[in-house]
């Protein structure tokens, strides 16, 4: 990279400015499906982080020997391999979380966030920025999942990370932990993000380089 600050910038980009869920709208299927509790968000975020980091490292390391014509297939082989590894390791080490996440671990394979980062970044960059990018994006993804999961858990079950946080008389809004609650929550969060972005741009009329990256 040209300047040392670029790495920092790459990291922050995924974490917030180009947040995969809130800005780029990538990986919404798991983001909506598993987030009926905050702990599920943490678990799926951790599994996705593992897969994205290993896939980006490998794709970036071998980007010179992978012919362009078969790059997508190779990405998928790499991603699918590490998703299966994550699935087996979780089943062996943390059966309770594995049972909770159920079908969503195998579905990390088709999370467009991961494939998108390989195509848009890891295949074109040296290993170091690719790893930094993967770390930023996956932490950003995890933060988003925990935010959605936290809001849905508080309103839908009256708890946060399993700890009761709402007053005793609180009647849980069951719809928040059902699928519609996921859509309500993400719509509200997107509106909030858009509002914050509009305010920031109003303050800084010419904010360079604020275009979000496109989806795959």
């Amino acid at each position, binding site marked *: 990279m040209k300047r040392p600050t670029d790495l920092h910038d790459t990291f922050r980009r995924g974490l917030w400015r180009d947040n995969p869920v809130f800005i780029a709208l990538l990986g919404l299927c798991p983001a909506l499906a598993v987030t009926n509790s905050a702990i599920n968000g943490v678990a799926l975020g951790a599994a996705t982080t593992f897969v994205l980091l290993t896939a980006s490292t490998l794709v970036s390391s071998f980007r010179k020997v992978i*012919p362009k014509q078969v790059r997508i297939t190779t990405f998928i082989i790499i991603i699918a391999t590490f998703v299966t590894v994550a699935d087996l390791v979780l089943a062996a080490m943390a059966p309770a979380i594995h049972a909770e996440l159920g079908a969503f671990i195998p579905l990390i394979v088709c999370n467009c966030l991961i494939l998108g980062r390989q195509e*848009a970044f890891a295949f*074109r*960059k040296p290993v170091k920025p690719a790893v930094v990018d993967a770390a930023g994006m996956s932490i950003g993804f995890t933060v988003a999942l925990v935010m959605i999961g936290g809001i849905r858990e508080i309103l*839908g079950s009256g708890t946060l990370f399993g700890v009761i946080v709402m007053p005793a008389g609180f009647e849980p809004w*069951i719809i928040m932990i059902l699928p519609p609650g996921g859509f309500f929550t993400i719509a509200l969060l997107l509106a909030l993000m858009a509002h914050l972005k509009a305010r920031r741009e109003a303050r800084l009329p010419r904010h360079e380089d604020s275009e979000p990256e496109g989806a795959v």
Partner: protein
Amino acid sequence: MADPLPQTSSPPKPASSNLTVIDDDGARDGTDLCHGCDTKLPQAPQPSPLRLILTLGIAGSLSGLLLVTVFLATAPAIERNRIEALERAALDVLPGAERFEVFVEQDGRVVRHDPSLGSPSGTTVYAGFDGDGEPIGFAIPGSGPGFQDTLEILIGWDPFRRRVIGMAVLETRETPGLGDKIITDPDFTASFESLSVEPTAVLVGPGARSEENEVDGISGATISAQAIVNIVNDSVSAWDQRLPDLTTESEQSKDTTRERPEQAQ
């Protein structure tokens, strides 16, 4: 696909082939000494088919090798977790049981599992005994269609009193907050602490249980609750005739004082 970084210096690419979209950014930065090096980064848009086959073949083989390694490394732990969960549930559905023996189905008969043969294969039934070696009953498996997916449960069956004495859900994808009340609803689960299946167990309204063979329903989870009741009826009738007689089968219970009921052979 937009490029992640602004590319002010790169000339517009010919749009004829999407294969030309990818370029090597490292080379533009002057950090890649091998830019244009034919062996590593072919400039020709079409590398030989052999190279494509080799790339995918090698990637696939390495992937397979890694997966087999991880699978073999984790398989014992995964199997142990599964059996532990099953055995925990077996003790749960047989109140008072402190140890159990494993029975397996063999040629249509249910026989004591010989531990020297290793882990049992096929369907297992657990016979639970209390601290004095008195038989309590069997934990028998059952499965059937729920609201979303197949439900798998374990049923505690007391063959002496001919009652279901416990029920645990092993596997469920029922709707969170509604269907998963089959695990959490106290009235519903309490119905299985002493439930007759003669003639059959039936689901009644929430809190309406008055007979031995009635199960309290769950409002909002009628289908899931009915599914559990159906599985209990089916499994008990399927297993009941085949279960061995614990009072004669078990050497620990030779001196049992528990009365045997009129036998259903």
